């Protein structure tokens, strides 16, 4: 009789008898493997496999984190990368082998926890088990002698234990046949700390709930990112996003109808140029509705009905004016330049102008660098401050065929270097400009730098599993605390007549599962019992009866 966990060892099933039917043999084999899978040893090995399986996900670039890094890895390791890719090593956390490990682990967990939950439900209603035959063999045990008779001594023990919130049961000892029932040889079993096992079960069941919540979020969740310049906006639809990802069960029609307009973006800095805050003033609302104002920023997203909108980055869009030789003027043309260095917000980008009306091979493009606070040394422009104190651009103007209608996808933020090297685009001018300055090309086209706008990188996220996961995480933690910090204790006591003095010998033993040292607590318990027995024995016989 122990309070150890139900055995999770690989208990070998008895070899099938020769006369068994094939069906029973299959059943036996299945049972055998089920026991193997749900054994604790298997669970530990699966835990290790899970830890090990996660390692490549942090050492190799992952598509889920950065597609660019994966592309770079492919160019750097042209022979190795395809092999790794076939092993799903760039998508570790959505790979079949990673799923296999955690699913096996969860099956093993369910196979262990469900029987334990049934067992525990039974134990909650059942009386504490019988005292073991040899109490003195338990880890903490001892003997006390008292002049009281056996029943009175057990009364004292029972009272002391009930005060300590034990569940107590008294039985006639199975060992007492010689002395006759009732007189001596009675025994007592007590137990407390059922919440420990409850916590254990809660912890493991919460893990399952957590996994289900994660899976739900992956199936029905989506997110999209977009760069929005001040004064512009977007509506929640996959066509509008620069990049998006969505779960397999998301349909375009399910997307929340919500539109966001960016009114104003502001970044503030400490004296040492550490960024101290990014705030975006936005209005949001359904399509065609008057918007509601809100301010969002780092650590402070917009939350509307389970959808969230985040500011994930920011930058500058320089604005240009282009005046053709015939006097046609395009004002306020601009495009986001992506920051290449967060500390100084030095940014690069390309403005493509395919529709100037001069023919397909006379398209213009401006590629360049924007410095919010520019410093020119040896004709090279660098940025020295992330704040737009003295904005300046260094631009190269190209002319030729941009290839935007060729069907080959190209980056919005840079010119196709192949087109430049093939001679499709030729450089026809270069200049460093401050706001208000302009340059004139050989054909008389004037390009002016008129200023800049700020843009914010916004992210729209929808994850229906989020609250489910949060709830599971909280109950997981509660279960863990109960499981690790509570103690499950059983106390057994048996009385026998003391041959020498005519009194009673009381044998007490405890079994503990859980934290801390059981020795000192057992010593304290026996000390209290001894004192209580002494107090009862010293009372006159009559008054003890009157209690």
């Amino acid at each position, binding site marked *: 009789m122990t309070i150890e966990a139900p055995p*999770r060892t690989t208990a070998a099933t008895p070899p099938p008898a020769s006369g068994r039917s094939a069906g029973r043999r299959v059943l036996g084999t299945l049972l055998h493997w089920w026991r193997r899978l749900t054994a604790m040893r298997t669970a530990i090995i699966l835990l290790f496999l899970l830890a090990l399986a996660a390692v490549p996900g942090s050492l190799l670039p992952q598509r889920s984190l950065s597609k660019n890094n994966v592309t770079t890895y492919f160019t750097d390791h042209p022979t190795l990368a395809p092999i790794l890719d076939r092993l799903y090593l760039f998508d570790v956390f959505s790979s079949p082998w990673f799923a296999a490990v955690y699913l096996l682990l969860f099956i093993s967990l369910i196979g262990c926890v469900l029987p334990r939950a049934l067992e525990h439900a039974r134990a909650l209603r059942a009386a504490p088990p019988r005292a073991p035959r040899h109490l003195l063999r338990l880890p903490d045990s001892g003997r006390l002698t008292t002049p009281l008779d056996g029943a009175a001594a057990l009364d004292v023990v029972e009272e002391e234990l009930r005060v300590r919130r034990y569940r107590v049961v008294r039985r006639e000892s199975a060992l007492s046949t010689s002395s006759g029932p009732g007189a001596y040889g009675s025994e007592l079993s007590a137990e407390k700390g059922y919440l420990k096992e409850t916590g254990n079960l809660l912890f493991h069941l919460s893990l399952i709930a957590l996994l289900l919540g994660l899976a739900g979020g992956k199936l029905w969740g989506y997110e999209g990112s977009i760069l929005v310049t001040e004064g512009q906006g977007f509506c929640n639809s996959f066509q509008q996003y620069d990049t998006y990802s969505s779960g397999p069960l998301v349909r375009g029609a399910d997307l929340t109808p919500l539109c966001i307009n960016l009114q104003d973006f502001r970044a503030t800095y400490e004296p040492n140029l550490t960024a101290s805050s990014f705030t975006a003033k936005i209005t949001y609302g359904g399509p065609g509705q008057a918007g509601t104002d809100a301010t969002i920023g780092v650590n402070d997203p917009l939350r509307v009905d389970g959808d969230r909108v985040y500011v994930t980055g920011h930058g500058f869009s320089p604005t240009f004016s282009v005046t053709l030789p015939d006097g046609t003027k395009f004002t306020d043309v601009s495009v986001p330049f992506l920051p290449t260095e967060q500390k100084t917000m030095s940014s690069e980008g390309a403005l493509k102008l395919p529709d100037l009306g001069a023919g397909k091979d006379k398209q213009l493009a401006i590629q360049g660098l924007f410095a919010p606070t520019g410093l020119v040394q040896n004709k090279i422009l660098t940025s020295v401050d992330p704040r737009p104190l003295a904005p300046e651009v260094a631009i190269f103007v190209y002319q030729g065929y941009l290839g935007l209608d060729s069907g080959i996808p190209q980056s919005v933020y840079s010119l196709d270097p192949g087109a430049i090297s093939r001679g499709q685009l030729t450089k026809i001018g270069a200049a460093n400009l401050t706001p208000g300055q302009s340059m004139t090309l050989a054909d008389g086209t004037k390009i002016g730098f008129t200023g800049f706008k700020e843009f914010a990188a916004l992210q729209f996220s929808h994850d229906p599993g989020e609250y489910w996961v949060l709830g599971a995480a909280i109950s997981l*933690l509660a279960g863990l605390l109960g499981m690790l910090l509570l103690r499950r204790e059983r106390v057994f006591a048996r009385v026998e007549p003391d041959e020498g003095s005519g009194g009673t010998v009381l044998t007490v033993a405890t079994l503990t599962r859980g934290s801390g040292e059981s020795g000192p607590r057992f010593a304290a318990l026996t000390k209290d019992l001894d004192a209580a027995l002494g107090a009862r024995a010293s009372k006159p016989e009559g008054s003890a009866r009157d209690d």
Partner: protein
Amino acid sequence: MTIDPTLAALSDHLFSISVALYSLAVVAFCAQLAFGRRPADAREPELVAAGAAGRAVPPTAPAMVPESARSRRWGQIAVAVAVLGALTHAGVLVTRGLAADRLPWGNMYEFATAMVLVATVSFLIFAVRMPAVRHLGAFVMGPVVVALVLIGLFLYAEAGPLVAALRSYWLAVHVTSAILGFGIFFVSGIASGAYLLRSRHDARLAAGQGRGDGVLSRLPSAATLDRVAHRTAVFGFPIWTFAVIAGAIWAESAWGRFWGWDPKETWAFIAWVVYAAYLHARTTAGWRGRAAAWVNVTGLVVMVFNLLYVNMVSTGLHSYAGLPK
């Protein structure tokens, strides 16, 4: 938010003083080991690794070992000096926090310094309450001194303001619990490492090899070390779990998702799984004892790797080390 240069300088001085005091404590702990010669028959009762029949321990708690008066005095001096060191060590963080007017764990230097303080304090709590554990002093405080020197040399960052992403009350919740968990696991890992040394030593003695009066035989008994390792891990595991959950909640507000397998998240998860394996292994037949201790040591290696490699080599969202790249 301006930086008070006087307080920042005071913090740096206190750092040096702490390293000096801890070094003195290591010397005193070594002296305790050196003078700790005790008669072979007075060694602590050997607790056989728990078998199916439960612990084979006499009903009384393991008796305190009589150790020589000189050794005990060195142990007391060592603990006293280490406590003094822990006070100045706490002063490092307090003055830095006051200098920058914020919680003093905004970069890797501050995080690691606070983590080592937690490790020291949790060891000292054991050392004060269980004198047998003081024999582990040199093995804990030695690594502490080495860690602090390396932190001072390679991770140092000037006191400064927090980057925007860290300006959230979740810094107090998430980072504090991560520091606590890490510091406690640090002691746990060292106790398991010492357990591995001690139990191998015991096995060799039992096989008639080796000498019974070396430094290893003056370590706390294998059973005590195992118990210290387990108790600290049991204490640290819920804290670490909480740190991960709090981190996920913060990430949901800061980065747009609660979990994204960022390198730091991945390694925090790996550490969590390894410690879960340790807690299971310690109660599973065939894994108890040395195998479980190895798992715990692996856990500490993962934690250190997560701190150093992920902050300094890999690129991810947890880029708050404040180190020049």
